[in-house]
């Protein structure tokens, strides 16, 4: 009897500590997902046009799950200190529902990240960049988004195309339909620009003289932020869930031992 009476405060203390960590992680998850949803790198139009924006859905779920984790951790702390069976049962059931949602968020983020390959962005860029005749309003919205995003990407990151300027030569594109290959072997934004936003040497750019055009592809500039986003949501969520699993098992054990 003496031994089990010593165990009670220890188990309670551990569970309270576990719930405090869950609460803090919930707030951190909410903050992280708000950051990703705010799209600091401006890549959302590209994902929206591929109709593959699952990582954004995962981040939205993450915002609400983080909040729920914080609220439920407070409920859990109260339930453990009061040793109240009803409160703890409600806590366990709601936590399981939150666990399921967070699991969905992690799996969605990881799965959709695997879809975002260079070929996907290449095909979308060729089909939509500066497309002249959009089919409907939605198409026009996506075309404008893709064109603006690519222009910004190529200017800021000094890159051209997905794998390089040869993307524009190897494949026909919507851009090629309205721009002569002789005048625009690749878009103007691929040229090295001066302070006024004009090409430093247009002939050098058209010839492809090293130094007067951007020879790198933009895929690294796209996949870096997208990877950070997807892995940040998926693996941080996974870590939280592993910890929550332990705390929930402990709470279930504690609950089953409370006198009613």
């Amino acid at each position, binding site marked *: *009897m003496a031994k*089990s009476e010593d165990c*009670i405060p220890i188990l309670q203390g551990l569970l309270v500590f576990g719930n405090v960590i869950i609460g803090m992680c919930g707030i951190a998850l909410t903050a992280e997902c708000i950051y990703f949803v705010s799209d600091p790198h401006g890549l959302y139009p590209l994902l929206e046009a591929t109709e593959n924006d699952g990582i954004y859905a995962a981040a939205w779920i993450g915002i609400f799950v983080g909040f729920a984790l914080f609220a439920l951790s407070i409920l859990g702390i109260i339930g453990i200190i009061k*040793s109240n069976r009803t409160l703890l049962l409600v806590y*366990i*059931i709601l936590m*399981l529902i939150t*666990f*399921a949602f967070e*699991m969905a968020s*992690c*799996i969605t983020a*990881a*799965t959709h*990240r*695997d*879809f975002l*390959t260079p*070929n*996907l962005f*290449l*095909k979308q860029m*060729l089909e939509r960049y500066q497309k002249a005749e959009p089919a409907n309003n939605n198409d026009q919205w996506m075309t404008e988004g893709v064109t603006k995003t690519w222009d910004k990407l190529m200017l800021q990151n000094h890159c051209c195309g997905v794998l390089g*300027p*040869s993307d524009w*030569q*190897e*494949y*026909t*594109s919507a851009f*090629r339909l309205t721009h*002569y*290959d*002789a*005048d625009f*072997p690749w878009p103007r934004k691929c040229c090295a620009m001066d302070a006024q936003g004009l090409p430093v040497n247009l*002939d050098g750019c*058209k*010839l*492809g*003289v*090293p130094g007067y055009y951007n*020879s790198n592809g933009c895929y690294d500039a796209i996949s870096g932020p997208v990877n950070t986003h997807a892995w940040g949501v*998926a*693996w941080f969520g*996974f870590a939280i*869930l*592993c910890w929550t*699993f332990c705390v*929930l*098992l402990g709470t*279930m*054990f*504690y*609950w*089953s*031992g*409370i*006198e*009613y």
Partner: protein
Amino acid sequence: LLPLLLLLLPAAHGEVKHVQYTPFLTKTPVLEGLTTGSTFVLEQPRCIFKDYSNADIWLVVALQKSSFNNSVAPGTAESAFQNFPDSVPAYMTLNATLANYPCPEHDGNITVLRVGSETSCIRDDARPTCNGPLPGPGPYLVKFLALKDSEPVAETDWSQPIMLRTAKSPNSISTTDEGHSAGMIALTTILSILFAILLAGLVAMLVFWGSDACGGSSTFSKPEAVTVRRYNTHHVYDQPAARL
């Protein structure tokens, strides 16, 4: 006037000197746009025509070697860019003089000729010497021809066949056959197992609700409130009956 002149002097032109030079695509610097879908970049023929200081040097672009006759005059319908390749087998463009190709070569600048760079005169019949974009992937053969007073006086060799780039359709890009990464599979598996264990734990909890299966009822119990009922053991109520 020029075709008339050539008709009147059929075989009177002198020998066309053969200059030992083969036109080639620029080797230095390495150019990204060396060949595109409709243009290519030739090295300028510097120090080649040094004996022909007042000749016009023309570039001849043809699809087949045999089809071009040196007596064809530039700026006529027989050598017009607009008629190539439908009705003429070759065209002449990029008129220059020795002043444009000075010796020594490579004085620090890039010395190239971009064939196909003028897009403004593609359909302008008034400009038969247009340096327009090439109409197909080729292969094209080029040579330089020097004309003095409209008479050919020197020519270079024909170049090696020059193939231009052909572009594929973006529909040929496959976006679907990528597998799933190991990380995603591990994440899904582990989370599913954890969730299954938790659900099993919840079911076990609810099934054994109230029973003492784990730990005994006295493990986490609150202190028991013991109440003692007071028993009145004296039968005081029988005495009044005894007094009567």
